[in-house]
C-alpha cells in the first residue's frame, strides 16, 4: 500500500477544505498538508451556490442584527457563542476573498455591493452576480495553487478514517484512476466533505453530495448533531430540483399561486407590498416559505402540470436588463432547461431538498469529540444554523470555519506528531479488505439504483416538509431493510481503473447511515421547530423539552441511538419567531427572559 506522511490531511476540496488548506499553509509553510478530494477541486459542490455570502457591511447594520437574524432564523437552536464569533469574522473573510480576487459585484463607485436575502433584517449578502459559490470556489482553488506545501490528491476517494488509541491518525483513500489504496497518515484530519441532500429524491445537490465525511465520523463514534433539520429550498426546478437562487426574491421577485395571488401573505409573512421589504413576504426564511407551498398545495392552489405541483416565481417586472446583470445564471437555467424566458414568463418552481443543517458535532473551534478530528462547512454542525439556516450564511461559514479548522488542526498536529504510517498499515489493510470484499462479492443480487431510489423515496415520504410519527417510523423501518439488502449488493464492475460502480456503492453505504441518523433524529423530536414540522399533535415548539441538540450515535447493526445535548444561550432568550408585520410587532415588545 502506498503511504504518504502528512502533518494534516484535509478531506474535501470545496470552499471549507480549500480555506482550511490555505490557512494552514500560510501559518506554517513547513507544514505538509494533504488535500484529498474525490473530484477535482473546482468540481466541488460549493460551485453551485448562487446568491451570496453574508457579512455585515453597511453603517446601519450591526453584528447584533446579524446575530439576531441568525439565531431567530435558527429557531433558537444555535450555539450563540459560536454565532457571535461567526458574525464578527464574516466581513473580514469576505474582504479576504476580495484580496484573493473574488469578482464581487460592485457599486458605481467601486465599492462592494450587497443584496437583500431571506430572513435578514439589513442587506448584507455579498454577491458575484448569481454565481457566488462558483467564483468563491475558483478564487480559493486558484489561490491555493501558489502554496507548494499543499499536496493535492485529486480524485482520491476517502474510504475510511484511521483511528488508533482513541485518536484520528490518518485516512485511507482510493486513487480513482487506478483503484489502488493509499494510506495518508497525519497528526490531524479535517473533514470538509459537504452535505448529504442526495439521500432525498428531489434535491438541488450535485451527485457527489453523499454525506461521506458525516458517515465516516459517525461510524467512528462521533455523534451527528441535529440531523433532523433538513432544509427545503422553496424555489427549485420541478423534477430536477435545480436551484433558482433566493437572490431572485432578494432582487424583487414574487411568488404567485394559480389564482395570481401572492400567497405568502396568508402565512404570517405579509402584508404584501410592491417593493421588497426585508423579512417580509418573499424575503421570509426558507423553512416558512417551503411550508407555505405545502399548505397551498393542500388547498389546491398550486398549478398542476406534467412536472407536478408548482407555483410561479415571477421576475418579469424586474426587466431583462437587470435579470441579465444580476441573475444571469438563473436566466440561462430557465431558458435552457425549461424553455422559459424569465423576462416574459414566470418560472415554475417548487421546494426541493437543499441543505443539511446538522452534521458532525464539533465545538466552536471545529474540534470533534474524537481527538485529532476537525470538521468545517456543511458536513459539520458547528452550531450556527440551528433548526433552519438563513440563505448566505453557509458560504460565509465555509470561509470563517474553514480557516478555524485549518489553524486548529495545525495546532493539534504540532502537539501530536503523525505516527509512522507503517503502524497504521494493518488497520488500513483490514479496511481495504472489507471494501474489496464488497466489490468482489459474487453472489449479490441487489441492484444499486433500486436501493438508491427506494432510499430517496422513503426519505421524501417520511422526512419531508411536514412529518408525522407513522410515516417517519415507516421510513426508519424501510432504511433498516435497505441496510440489510445493501449487504447483498451486487457490483457488476470488478475492474480497477475508474470503477465508479464500486465508489457509488461505498457512497450508498454512507448515505444509508446518514439517512438513518436523519430519520431517527426526526422521529424522536416531538415538537415543531424550524425545518422540522410535525402534524401529529406536536405542532408547537416545545422549549421545555426540546431546546436541545439531538445527537445520533452510530450502533453497528442497529438503529442509531438518539440522545440530547444542551444548547448554548448567551444573549438571546427563545422568543416568538415572527416575520412580516408580526415580526415588527414582536421586535417592539420589551425583552423578557
Amino acid at each position: 500500500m502506498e503511504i504518504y506522511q502528512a502533518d494534516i490531511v484535509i478531506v474535501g476540496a470545496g470552499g471549507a477544505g480549500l480555506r482550511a488548506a490555505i490557512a494552514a499553509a500560510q501559518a506554517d509553510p513547513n507544514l505538509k498538508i494533504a488535500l484529498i478530494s474525490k473530484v477535482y477541486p473546482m468540481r466541488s459542490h460549493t460551485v453551485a451556490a448562487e446568491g451570496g455570502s453574508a457579512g455585515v457591511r453597511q453603517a446601519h447594520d450591526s453584528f447584533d442584527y446579524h446575530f439576531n437574524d441568525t439565531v431567530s432564523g435558527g429557531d433558537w437552536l444555535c450555539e450563540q457563542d459560536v454565532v457571535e464569533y461567526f458574525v464578527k469574522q464574516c466581513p473580514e473573510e469576505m474582504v479576504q476573498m476580495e484580496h484573493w480576487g473574488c469578482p464581487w459585484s460592485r457599486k458605481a463607485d467601486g465599492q462592494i455591493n450587497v443584496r437583500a436575502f431571506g430572513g435578514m433584517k439589513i442587506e448584507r449578502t455579498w454577491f458575484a452576480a448569481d454565481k457566488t459559490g462558483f467564483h468563491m470556489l475558483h478564487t480559493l482553488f486558484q489561490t491555493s495553487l501558489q502554496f507548494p506545501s499543499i499536496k493535492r490528491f485529486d480524485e482520491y476517494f476517502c474510504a475510511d478514517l484511521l483511528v488508533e488509541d482513541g485518536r484520528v491518525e490518518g485516512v485511507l483513500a482510493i486513487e480513482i484512476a487506478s483503484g489502488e489504496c493509499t494510506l495518508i497518515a497525519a497528526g490531524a484530519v479535517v473533514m470538509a466533505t459537504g452535505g448529504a441532500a442526495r439521500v432525498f429524491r428531489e434535491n438541488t445537490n450535485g451527485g457527489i453530495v453523499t454525506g461521506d465525511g458525516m458517515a465516516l465520523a459517525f461510524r467512528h463514534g462521533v455523534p451527528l448533531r441535529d440531523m433532523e433539520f433538513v432544509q427545503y429550498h422553496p424555489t427549485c426546478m420541478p423534477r430536477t430540483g435545480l436551484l433558482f437562487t433566493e437572490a431572485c426574491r432578494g432582487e424583487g421577485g414574487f411568488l404567485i399561486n394559480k389564482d395570481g395571488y401572492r400567497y405568502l401573505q396568508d402565512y404570517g409573512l405579509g402584508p404584501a407590498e410592491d417593493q421588497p421589504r426585508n423579512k417580509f413576504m418573499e424575503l421570509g426564511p426558507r423553512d416558512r416559505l417551503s411550508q407555505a407551498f405545502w399548505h397551498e398545495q393542500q388547498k389546491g392552489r398550486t398549478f398542476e402540470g406534467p412536472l407536478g405541483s408548482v407555483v410561479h416565481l415571477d421576475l418579469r417586472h424586474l426587466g431583462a436588463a437587470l435579470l441579465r446583470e444580476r441573475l444571469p445564471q438563473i436566466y440561462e437555467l430557465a431558458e435552457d432547461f425549461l424553455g422559459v424566458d424569465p423576462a416574459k414568463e414566470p418560472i415554475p418552481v417548487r421546494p426541493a431538498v437543499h441543505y443539511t443543517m446538522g452534521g458532525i458535532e464539533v465545538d466552536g473551534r471545529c474540534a470533534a469529540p474524537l481527538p485529532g478530528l476537525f470538521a468545517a462547512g456543511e458536513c459539520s454542525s458547528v452550531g450556527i444554523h440551528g433548526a433552519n439556516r438563513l440563505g448566505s450564511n453557509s458560504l460565509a461559514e465555509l470561509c470563517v470555519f474553514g480557516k478555524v479548522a485549518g489553524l486548529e488542526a495545525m495546532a493539534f498536529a504540532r502537539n501530536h506528531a503523525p505516527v509512522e504510517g507503517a503502524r497504521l498499515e494493518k488497520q488500513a489493510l483490514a479496511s481495504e479488505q472489507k471494501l474489496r470484499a464488497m466489490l468482489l462479492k459474487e453472489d449479490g443480487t441487489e441492484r444499486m439504483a433500486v436501493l438508491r431510489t427506494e432510499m430517496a423515496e422513503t426519505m421524501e415520504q417520511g422526512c419531508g416538509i411536514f412529518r408525522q410519527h407513522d410515516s417517519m417510523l415507516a421510513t426508519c423501518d424501510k432504511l433498516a431493510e435497505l441496510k440489510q439488502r445493501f449487504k447483498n449488493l451486487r457490483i457488476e464492475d470488478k475492474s480497477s481503473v475508474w470503477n465508479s460502480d464500486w465508489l457509488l456503492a461505498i457512497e450508498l453505504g454512507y448515505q444509508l447511515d446518514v439517512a438513518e441518523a436523519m430519520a431517527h433524529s426526526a422521529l424522536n423530536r416531538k415538537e415543531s421547530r424550524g425545518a422540522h414540522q410535525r402534524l401529529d399533535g406536536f405542532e408547537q415548539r416545545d422549549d421545555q423539552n426540546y431546546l436541545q441538540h439531538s445527537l445520533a450515535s452510530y450502533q453497528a447493526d442497529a438503529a442509531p441511538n438518539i440522545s440530547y445535548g444542551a444548547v448554548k444561550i448567551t444573549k438571546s432568550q427563545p422568543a416568538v419567531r415572527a416575520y412580516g408585520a408580526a415580526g415588527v410587532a414582536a421586535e417592539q415588545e420589551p425583552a423578557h427572559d
Partner: protein
Amino acid sequence: MTEQTIVIEVMRYRPEQDQEPWPQRFTVPYSDDMSVLQGLQYIKDYLDESLSFRWSCRMAICGSCGMMVDGIPKLACKTFLRDYPGQVRIEALHHFPIERDLVVVLDDFMEKLERIQPYIIPKEPRALSEGEHLQTPAQLDLYAQFSSCINCLLCYAACPQYGLNSDFLGPGAIALLHRYNQDSRDGASQLRMQLIGAEEGVFNCTAVGYCSEVCPKQVDPANAVNLNKTQSAKDYFLRFVKPKGSCQ
C-alpha cells in the same frame, strides 16, 4: 406521456480489457426534458453499470460532464436528447488521453492552470484592515467574462492546434491568464506575458474561433487569445525602445 426511445451509442474504453475504443449501443426511453447526462445515468442505472463518466452539478457550472455529442464538444447536462431524433453518439472529449469510457486525463490542463499563476499577485501589499480594493463596474467588466470559465475543457476539444500540439497553452488557460492580467488588483501581467509570447503561447493559435463557439459559458477564449496576440506583439517591439524593468 408517450414513451419514446433513442439509441445512444457510447464509445467504450476499458483499459484493462480493450485495445481501443469501441461503440456500444443502448436503447433508452426518454422524455423531452431529459438531458444527455440523464440518458447516460439511465444506462448506468439500468442497462450497464460498468459505464464510467464524470458528472455532478447537473446545471452547467461544475464543468465535469464535457464530452463529444455527435462529434461536437458539449456539456452533457445541458444538451437534450430531444435534439437528436433517433440516435446520438457519445464519446470522450477529443484531444485528451482517455482514462476510461468517457473519462479523460486532465493532468495536462491542471499543469497549465498552475503555470499561468492564476491568482492575484498584488501591485502593492494591502492589509485586510485596509478593506477592499475599489474596483469600478467598468474595471470589473474588463475581466468578468474571462473569470466565468468553468474549466470544462470543451474549448480544448475544439481547438485544432491543441489537437496537433498539446504544448500549446490552449484557449481556457489563456482566457484565465488574461482574466488575471486584466484585473485592476493584479500587478504581475509582465510575468504572465512571458508565457503568452513563448513557444507554447498565443502565436500557436490559427484563429479558427471554434473554441468560443463551443464555450458553454460565453467566456469567448478566442477573444482573450487575440487580445494577447496584439499585446504580445506590442511588448515585443517595446523591448527595443524601453530599458529592461521599466513600467509601461
